[in-house]
């Protein structure tokens, strides 16, 4: 919208107005990705400070808000990466973790773990809301690395290659994690829903 009213390439930075103009916006963005108020505050602060340090990198091609959001996004990735790395040394012997045991040796679903219809009507907003709440809880139960991989992939349609590089994963491990995270999420939803 604003692009039309402003002269092209006339974007400049105005750090003294950042807090007033963008602090709440960036805070909301951060909180939707990290789900932790304290961490989200820290991220906003770090974003502004990093922005001040790298003002000379601003080419004026994007809006100030877009530029700051990009910095914030990188900070969020750092958080994911730290979580992912901390995890490897902790409880997990390898980066992809345990296979959820939903299948028999021969690859068939175990009877008690087999997917059942949720019976949620697409047009029933109340049921959708409840299901959303259940999903949020289930997401929190995923191992940190899985959650990071999952969130990064869905957040901005981030390319698989760059996620693998960021989190130091092989492509094969990436897909195994996506799959296991999904199996667990779905099973968790089923347990909490049925």
């Amino acid at each position, binding site marked *: 919208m604003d692009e039309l009213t402003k002269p092209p390439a006339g974007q400049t930075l105005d750090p003294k107005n*950042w807090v007033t103009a963008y602090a709440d916006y960036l805070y909301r963005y951060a909180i939707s990705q990290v789900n932790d108020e304290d961490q989200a505050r820290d991220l906003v602060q770090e974003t502004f400070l990093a922005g001040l340090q790298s003002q000379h990198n601003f080419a004026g091609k994007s809006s100030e808000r877009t530029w700051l959001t990009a910095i914030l996004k990188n900070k969020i990735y750092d958080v994911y990466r730290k979580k992912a790395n901390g995890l490897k040394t902790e409880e997990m012997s390898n980066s992809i973790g345990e296979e959820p045991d939903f299948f028999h040796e021969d690859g068939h679903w175990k009877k008690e773990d087999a997917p059942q219809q949720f019976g949620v009507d697409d047009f029933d907003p109340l049921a959708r809301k409840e299901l959303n709440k259940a999903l949020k809880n289930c997401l929190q139960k995923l191992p940190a690395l899985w959650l990071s991989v999952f969130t990064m992939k869905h957040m901005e349609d981030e390319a698989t290659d760059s996620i693998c590089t960021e989190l130091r994963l092989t492509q094969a491990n990436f*897909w195994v994690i996506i799959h296991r995270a999904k199996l667990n999420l*779905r099973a968790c939803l089923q347990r909490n829903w049925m």
Partner: protein
Amino acid sequence: MNELRKVIYNCRKATYLIDKRLIGSITFRETVELRIHLIGCKVCGIYMKQSKMINQMIRQLLKSEKPQEIQLDEGFKEALQAQITAEINKN
């Protein structure tokens, strides 16, 4: 034929392919194998539907803008403003 057998009768492999296909790509051969598996396996059909739904829900969850009520408290903002002003004046 052996490989084909494996997928046709293997829900573990089929669900892997389902999840991969939803956000990435699988080979033509895998697509055919998966299709054959789904013809005979209703349970994996349910899985596919639910997997797709979960992806949609997660996207909405992540992309939905948080309500405007969520704001930083004024004290924090003032401190932040002071910090930034100090940084600017340093240079």
